């Protein structure tokens, strides 16, 4: 109890409050800018963080992580370009709503559900971190293989395109995931002798190209259209009617997001896609999805913010990062001489409570930043198209280049812009490709590892109950669209 008070008192000091407030605003802005995200900001800040007081430095990184995860939704909704990968699913419903003139309602819902999801996950982190962290040990390669298959089964009902087109898109993504040095044999595949491809297709150029670049081309192709007038964006808290509609969705998505966040290999991106799918599955009006359904914003936004708290669980409790950003945060902690792990809970509980307090505050502050500041951020959609998209493209180039200082990545981004454009004109959506790319790699690696573990005996999977559970869910996922249409036909 002493430790909790010390930690909370630390966070409530004047300079920490100011720091958290500023870091939240900066995090939201960086999250909103496509290609820039919490990872890049934290990495760029590392030289400054290491000379800070350790607790303040780590609280700062955690705050940026939370705020940037929300910030990603702003550009998802307003210009159909996810500011962070985790906000990709938010474009599905957010952009249609903005086109309909309901950007304010969408942003309000994004801020509210992000905040609720984030706070829920921090509460989970506080209450159950040591217990929940044990789940990680029960997830070996066979369980990950089953989990990844389950994830791929969701392609069947992802987005608003046909099941077949989703599978084709997913297969394309899996194909892309095979580029690079094969993990188990060290053999290069589809690299054409280029060392730039040896580590596979980088995720960020692909995402920026498929989402931002293709949108730019779509906009350019539609240049004869009358410039669209953006109605005044008055961001407000969700109405009671909206709240009643999404409360179940937010509750389920927050749980799902926290759980996925705790798993070491998965973060907000997968959590948001899964939550979106679940929201559609549970919805009474699934036909409204893809045309601006409010549940389709509440689900990914509460899930990706819930994943931040979830990802901090294994990071703090085991010293095993739960996502890419927490891996960077873990690096910062080690540089500051703090070694996360079970011992930390006994030795420096006040440090942990300061992080918990900082994350809770960040989730509250961005709710207000979102409600009052989104009006400001929304002005980017009032900027004339030629300036807005010019700027977005410039940021996309800078963001792509900045990850590895590689022009090759920039060309890759340009290539995927064209691919994305052609796909969208043909009625395919980009999300299945991204899912295929994320999960394809996991499927292959975890299957290879499992088979090595079982000494090439497939029946080994039958000794793993958690894996069997996910296999069953995967079967259900594949069969679901057919079951549903059969039921509808009978009706």
């Amino acid at each position, binding site marked *: 109890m002493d430790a909790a008070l010390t930690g909370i008192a630390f966070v409530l000091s004047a300079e920490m409050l100011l720091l958290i407030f500023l870091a939240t605003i900066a995090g939201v802005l960086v999250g909103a800018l496509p290609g820039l995200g919490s*990872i890049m900001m*934290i*990495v760029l800040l*590392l*030289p400054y963080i*290491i000379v800070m007081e350790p607790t303040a430095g780590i609280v700062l990184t955690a705050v940026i992580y939370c705020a940037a995860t929300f910030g990603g939704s702003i550009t998802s909704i307003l210009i159909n370009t996810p500011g962070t990968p985790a906000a990709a699913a938010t474009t599905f419903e957010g952009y249609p709503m903005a086109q309909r003139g309901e950007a304010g309602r969408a942003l309000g819902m994004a801020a509210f559900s992000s905040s609720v999801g984030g706070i829920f996950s921090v509460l989970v982190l506080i209450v159950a971190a040591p217990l929940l962290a044990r789940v*990680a*040990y*029960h*997830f*070996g*390669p066979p369980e990950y293989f089953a989990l990844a298959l389950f994830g791929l089964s969701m392609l069947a009902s992802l987005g608003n395109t046909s099941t077949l087109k989703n599978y084709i898109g997913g297969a394309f993504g899996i194909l892309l995931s095979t580029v690079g*040095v094969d*993990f*188990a*044999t*060290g053999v290069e595949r589809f690299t054409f002798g280029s*060392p*730039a*491809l*040896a*580590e596979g297709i980088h995720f960020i150029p692909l995402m920026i190209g498929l989402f931002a670049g293709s949108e730019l081309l779509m906009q350019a192709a539609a240049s004869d259209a009358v410039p669209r007038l953006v109605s005044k964006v008055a961001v407000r808290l969700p109405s009671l009617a909206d709240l009643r509609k999404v409360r179940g969705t937010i509750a389920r998505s927050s749980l799902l997001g926290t759980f996925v966040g705790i798993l*070491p*290999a998965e973060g907000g991106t997968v959590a948001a896609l899964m939550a979106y799918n679940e929201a559609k599955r549970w919805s009474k009006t699934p036909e409204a999805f893809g045309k601006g359904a409010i549940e389709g914003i509440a689900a990914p936004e509460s899930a990706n913010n819930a994943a931040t708290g979830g990802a901090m669980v294994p990071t703090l409790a*085991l*010293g*095993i*990062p739960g996502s890419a950003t927490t*891996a*960077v945060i873990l*690096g910062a902690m*080690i*540089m*500051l*001489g*703090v*070694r*996360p*792990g*079970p*011992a*930390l809970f006994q030795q420096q509980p006040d440090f942990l409570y300061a992080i918990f307090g900082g994350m809770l505050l960040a989730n509250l502050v961005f709710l207000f930043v979102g409600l009052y500041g989104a009006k400001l951020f929304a002005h980017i959609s009032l900027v004339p198209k030629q300036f807005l998209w010019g700027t977005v493209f410039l940021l996309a180039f800078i963001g792509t280049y900045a*990850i*590895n*200082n*590689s022009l090759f990545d920039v060309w890759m981004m340009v290539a995927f812009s064209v691919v994305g454009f052609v796909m969208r004109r043909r009625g395919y959506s980009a999300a299945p490709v991204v899912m295929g790319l994320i999960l394809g790699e996991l499927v292959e*690696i975890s299957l*290879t*590892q499992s088979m*090595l*573990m079982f*000494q090439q005996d497939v029946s080994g999977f039958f000794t793993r109950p958690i894996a069997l559970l996910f296999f069953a869910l995967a079967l259900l996922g594949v069969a679901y669209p057919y079951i549903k249409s059969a039921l509808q036909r009978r009706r």
Partner: protein
Amino acid sequence: MKRRSILRGAALGLLVLAGPMAGGAEVMAQDSFPSKTIEIVNLSGAGGGSDIFLRMAALRARKSLKTDIQVLPKPGGLGVNAMNYVNGKPRDGYTVMSLLPGHLISIANGKAPIGFDELVPLVRGTDDPQLLMVAGNGSFTGITDVIAEAKRRPIKIGGTHVGGIDHITAVSFIKKVGAQNPIYIPFKSGSELVTNLIGGNIEVAVLNFGEAESQIESGEIQAAVVLAKDRMSVLPDTPTSHDAGFDLNISLVRGMAVLKGTPEDRIAALETAFLKSMNHSVYQNYLSGSGLAPSSIADRQAWSAQISDMYVSIQDTLKELGMAQ
């Protein structure tokens, strides 16, 4: 209009301030090194272990060299991208590269644009011995157990990717003790290895101390053997490979190098500056925070000797695995 004139004034002011500095640098350029930014090219992305090492080492070196030092990540192809970049730059001391076992592996298997004799090792910053670890509650209680069982049947050893330093460690260990070829299961990161070792999916893991420190403290993982001549101060009870009766020293070393052809006086200036920087308390705190000994730091001579030894053993093992050129 008013705002614009303020901006103009500010710009002028900056120019006035920057003018003398820029002029000064030009004068200095003629006779002293360094007079412009030094780049350190790294083989992996920002935020990783080697990135952090380079940034920490650069921190105080900036002050003693009186110039900016930037860490430039060029990931891809296990150091091949980084070496391509460095190879395309003039050998004037302004381009420094990180030097890790990964670079040596790429040189040994013929994928790198440069040969081994073109490397001029500069300084070593970390020396993190490889350890073989077993689960705290598993069937093995020590390294003698592991060796005995490995002779009876192929054991499951986990490490990072195939053909990397962990794989070389595992193969070298098995060869030294004359055991059966193991089942080598690759994982993506040290944290996954830790989880799977505790979860019982692998029997032995190749890890560094820092990667499993808290699990060793809590007893979930047991460090079976340190592959080094001396015991680690943080693990006084863990035997070395020499204690266990086999002679194998492999450590995850991180250091820097320049390419052959760089003027000798500049190499010496860089070596002095980085050694001074790493002996400062900021770097020492980073070392102790990562569970590393102060003896991690080594000068050009010691580092060159170690790199040459390591290159020979990497070549041998890669030939064994059929992966060398």
